């Protein structure tokens, strides 16, 4: 290439390159950066070979490009100008791609993106949701041009901004333009780039330096890497413009050595620029001189800090120094220096070329343009995402990122890496901007977003970041050197189950001190991960310290196997699964009953937290633990039945339990097992609580509950039916009658009212969820006619809608405030409801029930914009300008349940909590009156069966302790069963390497099942159950071996 000696010659070159392009040539763009880790170079070689073999070299250009963004599906290729994207391409696909798509314009289903819900192929990139909400400006060239060829950049309009800056603008005008564009530093702190330039320009001293900070050390961030690898000239052009604006003669790019491809591409790019005369003396004949060199980092995170970075360029230990003086006054070599990060520089050509007004038309009031985020962690579409500033976190993670894999629950997103914090679920609607993110305790940082799901432990995450900052602290200032060590020690102690209650306060104090007194950014922000997790996940810290529970089931010291730890009741899952694998079904049920007297009920309707934590799920799919439990329990009742010998009464004390729901019966069962005489008082004529009177039979047949209750009765638990504890027979009376302790487990059985305009009692066609289900279950004739609207997004709403369908409603629609991702109902229930023809309308807030002559006519809804307010509290906001009227003959309100405390006499001395239930100690469930305990849904509000069961067992342990005069806290640790079952299962390598997917469960066909209340789900056959059980990896054994 010849040296260009004027601005005009650059334009001439551009025209020449464009003219040489063959019209109508098909281009295959293959990512040769990130995707290389997944074999894209082999793919490229194979496609090139096929193109040659099939004789289309003249019509096809195979081009190595930078990152396409959609890294989750690497290797990714794009075919232009068709706009087709193929993903997860193998070298073996090359022949077909060339013969079908390139030669005959035929698309290949197998290689296309699949819509996650319909599984239909989506061929065109513009139709893939991952790209639809993005605004790819800085990344426009990334994945389209060959980053190693300057001609490609020039052809795509590159260096036009430089031409404009050199020929039409004064340095002051350039700076003003950047200020007007409201570009803020993309490296994290978010200072106005234009102002920073102005300071450097006005500073005295020569020469001046500019630096590109490409030391992307922040773990979890890779956007700078992608820009450097995919479009290096954009960064270099930005630097040239900046040098012109500030009057700098020398520039450095400080890049991590861990990015070899970026180093290669930058080196090449600089060579090409020198050849063309875009670097050096008298650039484009304008008299502008600028020299640029590359400096490689040597692996020190602190060098991302500007003063440390400059020390490192100067060949010293990369330690920060105090500011002021700021680099703009005295930086490199003591001379005025400006430092900007990669993405900031890459934004500059866009501003100059298109003008500040164009640039700032997207973004927020205080910051213009887009921001690139690297989306990683527990999110479906990992990759590079460029969005206008101001979009919500939710849009990035759920709309673009495709949500959380494997149906798990989102917990938090970490922004800003070790200097940042986490943003929990209630703030998902926050618009992304420097200031809003800062307010939440995180920072924008360089743009790393690491998504965490329910299987991550927030204490452990904080410990992880501190171990990082502790080892990266340069040691120059004491607050950081000693503080990070102390913080790490405390956090490690907590994750090891040795935490102390005062630790939480210590972390806060220490964190604040380190923040205030450290020398540089590393120290000043190192406490953020701990402080922000503490702010939003205090309970997790407390659970670790006080209860030895780890919500993510990851902290080794408290977890034997994740499934057992995840189970609120703490059942030894691996052993009963192993028993099933060995055909020992009775033993399996015995193991379950060590912690849970309701194996058959849980086998059918448990929300199975265990399966979400199952390690097999990381490989393919979790073991079907719930269905295995169901199989074993069904087998038990079929072959053995509910008969059994009573537990002998060995103790003198008597205990009364109020309420024969899962919590009450579990408590009674375990007390009986310990040898206590136990009597359960139940207001209804049937036992089981919600299980007996509310859960519809298509999910839980009546006989199942009856069998379990009868088993518990056979254990020696006496149930007195139709015996309410109320004003006529109070808790005090029970104590007076000689009961030594009372456990109140009265459930949460009164439906909440909506408080909607027009919601008048006694309206024909207006029902409430739980009462409605109870009436159906108790056999009342509740045929529905006409259109039915169900209000609510929880499990009861699903049950109500499905029940309504079965009693004759003409059409059932559910309306709820939450959007699709926020609905509290279980996904399985939502899907089954949809299959049955129920229409679910998310994001609608009920406004007014319209009725005439005492009969429901319909209901009006406003669009619900968000359910949580800026403080993360439940406080729905509706948009009144978008509303609809829905005609309805019946309205069933199922928006939640509350405990019915009317049975407690007014003068009862039991201390009440704010919302009407009783105040209890979290650990022992004891009330303020000695000997009286309360638990289950009654104190927690409605939750799931397994939690009520856990609460019942806790109460039994607490009552036993109380009666023995032991005042220590209850410690419910994971324990192995005494019925050990040691089998190889999938643990031995032979079976592990063989693919064995989870067995799918069969269901009754929707058309048939909605005709009656038959059970929807079918169970495993014996053969299926034993094979499914073999899939267990026996993590518990691994743990035992490790501790030896």
């Amino acid at each position, binding site marked *: 290439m010849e040296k260009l000696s004027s601005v005009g010659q650059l334009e001439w070159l551009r025209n020449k390159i464009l003219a040489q392009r063959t019209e109508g040539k098909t281009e295959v763009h293959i990512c040769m950066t*990130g995707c*290389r*880790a*997944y074999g894209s170079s082999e793919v490229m070689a194979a496609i090139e070979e096929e193109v040659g073999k099939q004789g289309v070299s003249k019509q096809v250009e195979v081009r190595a490009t930078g990152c396409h963004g959609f*890294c*989750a599906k*690497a290797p990714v290729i794009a075919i232009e100008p068709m706009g087709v994207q193929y993903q997860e391409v193998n070298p073996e696909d090359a022949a077909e791609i060339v013969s079908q798509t390139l030669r005959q314009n035929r698309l290949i289903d197998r290689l296309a993106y699949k819509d996650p819900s319909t599984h239909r192929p989506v061929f065109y990139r513009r139709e893939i949701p991952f790209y639809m909400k993005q605004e790819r400006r800085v990344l426009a060239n990334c994945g389209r041009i060959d980053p190693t060829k300057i001609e490609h950049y020039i052809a795509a309009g590159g260096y036009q901004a430089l031409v404009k800056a050199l020929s039409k603008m004064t340095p002051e005008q350039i700076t003003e333009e950047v200020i007007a564009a409201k570009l803020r530093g993309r490296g994290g702190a978010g200072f106005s780039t234009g102002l920073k330039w102005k300071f450097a320009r006005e500073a005295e001293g020569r020469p001046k330096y500019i630096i590109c900070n490409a030391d*992307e*050390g*922040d*773990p*979890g*961030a*890779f956007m700078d*890497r992608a820009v450097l690898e995919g479009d290096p000239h954009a960064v270099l052009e930005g630097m040239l413009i900046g040098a012109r604006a500030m009057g700098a003669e020398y520039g450095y790019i400080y890049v*991590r*050595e*861990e*990015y*070899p491809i970026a180093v290669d591409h930058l080196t090449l790019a600089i060579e090409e620029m020198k050849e063309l005369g875009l670097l050096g003396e008298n650039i484009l004949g304008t008299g502008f001189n600028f020299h640029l060199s590359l*400096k*490689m*980092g*040597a*692996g*020190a*995170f602190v060098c991302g800090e500007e003063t440390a970075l400059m020390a*490192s*360029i*100067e*060949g*010293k*230990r*990369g*330690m920060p120094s105090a500011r002021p003086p700021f680099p703009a006054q005295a930086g490199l070599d003591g001379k005025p220096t400006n430092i900007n990060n990669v993405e900031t520089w890459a934004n500059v050509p866009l501003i100059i070329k298109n003008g500040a007004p164009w640039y700032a038309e997207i973004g927020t009031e205080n910051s213009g343009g887009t921001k690139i985020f*690297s*989306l*990683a*962690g*527990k999110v479906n579409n*990992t*990759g*590079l995402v460029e969005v206008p500033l101001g979009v919500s976190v939710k849009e990035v993670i759920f709309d673009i990122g495709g949500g959380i894999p494997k149906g798990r629950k989102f917990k938090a997103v*970490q922004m800003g*890496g*070790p200097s940042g914090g986490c943003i929990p679920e209630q703030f998902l609607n926050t618009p992304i901007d420097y200031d809003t993110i800062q307010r939440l305790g995180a920072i924008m940082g360089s743009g*790393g977003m*690491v998504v*965490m799901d329910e299987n*991550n432990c927030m204490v452990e*995450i904080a410990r*992880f*970041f501190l171990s*990082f900052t502790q080892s*990266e602290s*340069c040691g120059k200032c004491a607050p950081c050197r000693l503080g990070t060590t102390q913080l790490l020690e405390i956090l490690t102690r907590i994750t090891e189950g040795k935490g102390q209650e005062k630790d939480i306060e210590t972390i806060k104090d220490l964190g604040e001190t380190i923040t205030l007194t450290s020398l540089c950014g590393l120290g000043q922000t190192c406490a953020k991960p701990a402080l922000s997790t503490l702010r939003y996940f205090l309970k997790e810290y407390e659970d670790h310290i006080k209860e030895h529970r780890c919500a993510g089931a990851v902290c080794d010291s408290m977890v034997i196997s994740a499934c057992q730890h995840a189970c609120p009741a703490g059942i030894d899952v691996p052993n009963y699964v192993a028993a099933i694998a060995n055909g020992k079904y009775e033993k399996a049920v015995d193991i379950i009953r060590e912690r849970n007297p309701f194996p058959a009920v849980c086998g059918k309707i448990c929300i199975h937290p265990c399966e979400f934590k199952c390690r097999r799920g*990381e*490989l393919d799919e979790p073991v079907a633990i719930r269905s295995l439990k169901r199989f074993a329990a069904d087998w038990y009742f079929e072959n053995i039945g509910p008969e059994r010998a009573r537990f002998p009464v060995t103790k003198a004390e008597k205990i009364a339990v109020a309420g024969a729901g899962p919590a009450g019966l579990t408590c009674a069962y375990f007390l009986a097992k310990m040898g206590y005489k136990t009597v359960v008082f139940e207001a209804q004529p049937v036992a089981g609580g919600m299980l007996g009177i509310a859960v519809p039979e298509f999910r839980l047949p009546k006989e199942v509950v009856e069998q379990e209750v009868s088993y518990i009765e056979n254990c020696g638990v006496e149930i007195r039916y139709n015996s309410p504890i109320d004003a006529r027979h109070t808790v005090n009376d029970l104590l007076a009658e000689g009961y030594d302790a009372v456990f109140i487990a009265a459930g949460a059985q009164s439906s909440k009212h909506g408080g909607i305009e027009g919601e008048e009692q006694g309206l024909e066609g207006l029902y409430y969820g739980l009462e409605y289900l109870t009436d159906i279950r108790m056999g009342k004739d509740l045929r529905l006619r006409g259109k039915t609207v169900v209000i609510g997004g929880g499990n009861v709403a699903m049950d109500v809608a499905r029940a309504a369908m079965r009693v004759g409603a003409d059409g059932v629609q559910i309306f709820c405030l939450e959007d699709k991702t926020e609905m509290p109902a279980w996904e399985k229930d939502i899907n089954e409801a949809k299959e049955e023809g129920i229409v679910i309308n998310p994001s609608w807030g009920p406004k007014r029930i319209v009725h005439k002559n005492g009969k429901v006519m319909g209901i009006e809804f406003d669009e619900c914009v968000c359910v949580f307010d800026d403080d993360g509290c439940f406080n729905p906001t509706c948009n009144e300008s978008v509303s609809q009227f829905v005609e309805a003959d019946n309205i069933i309100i199922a928006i939640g349940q509350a405990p019915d405390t009317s049975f407690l006499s007014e003068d009862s001395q039991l201390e009440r909590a704010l919302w009407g239930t009783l105040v209890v100690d979290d650990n022992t469930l004891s009330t303020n009156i000695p000997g009286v305990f309360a638990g289950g849904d009654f104190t927690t509000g409605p939750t799931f069966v397994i939690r009520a069961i856990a609460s019942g067992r806790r109460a039994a342990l607490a009552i036993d302790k109380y009666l023995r005069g032991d005042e220590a806290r209850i410690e419910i640790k994971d324990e192995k069963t005494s019925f050990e079952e040691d089998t190889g299962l999938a643990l031995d390598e032979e079976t*592990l*390497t063989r693919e064995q997917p989870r067995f799918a469960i069969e269901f009754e066909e929707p058309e048939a099942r909605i005709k009656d209340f038959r059970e929807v789900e079918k169970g495993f056959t014996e053969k299926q159950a034993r094979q499914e059980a073999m899939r267990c990896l026996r993590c518990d054994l691994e743990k035992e071996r490790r501790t030896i």
Partner: protein
Amino acid sequence: MKPKETDWNQLFSIIEKHKHEKWGLIPLLQDIQESFGYIPPDSIEPVAQALNMFPSQVQGVITFYAGFTLKPRGKYVIRCCRGTACHVKGSRSILRLMKKELGLEEGETSEDYQFTLETVACLGACFLAPTMMVNRDYFGKLSPTKVNSVLSQYKKSEKC
């Protein structure tokens, strides 16, 4: 395969190359490490002399940066990424497995100088988490089986 004796001629030619470069110490050390696989402790003094520095200053810079090592490394440097994204996707277990498979702790080199096991703060390939790097090649979406197959690939390539 024990590391070769320090080739002094090669060392001096590298020193010569960077001697007059402004702020040349780090590029010089990088060059030495690139050529020898590590920075031979013997080279500290000649480097210091050439750059007119104290040997302690040179040593200080070497020990400050995680990228420099004074110990010879194996033919294959295996880096397990311990970045955030990899961490939340279970790189702790991946590292545990590597240690077991290689019989090495972090920072150790096998006796035959085939393998060195290191951890790295972040490889910037978070989208493929958990990841590892063997010399300059990336491997992503690791599972226990994949780690075993990658490692055995390098073990095998040694035998033939």
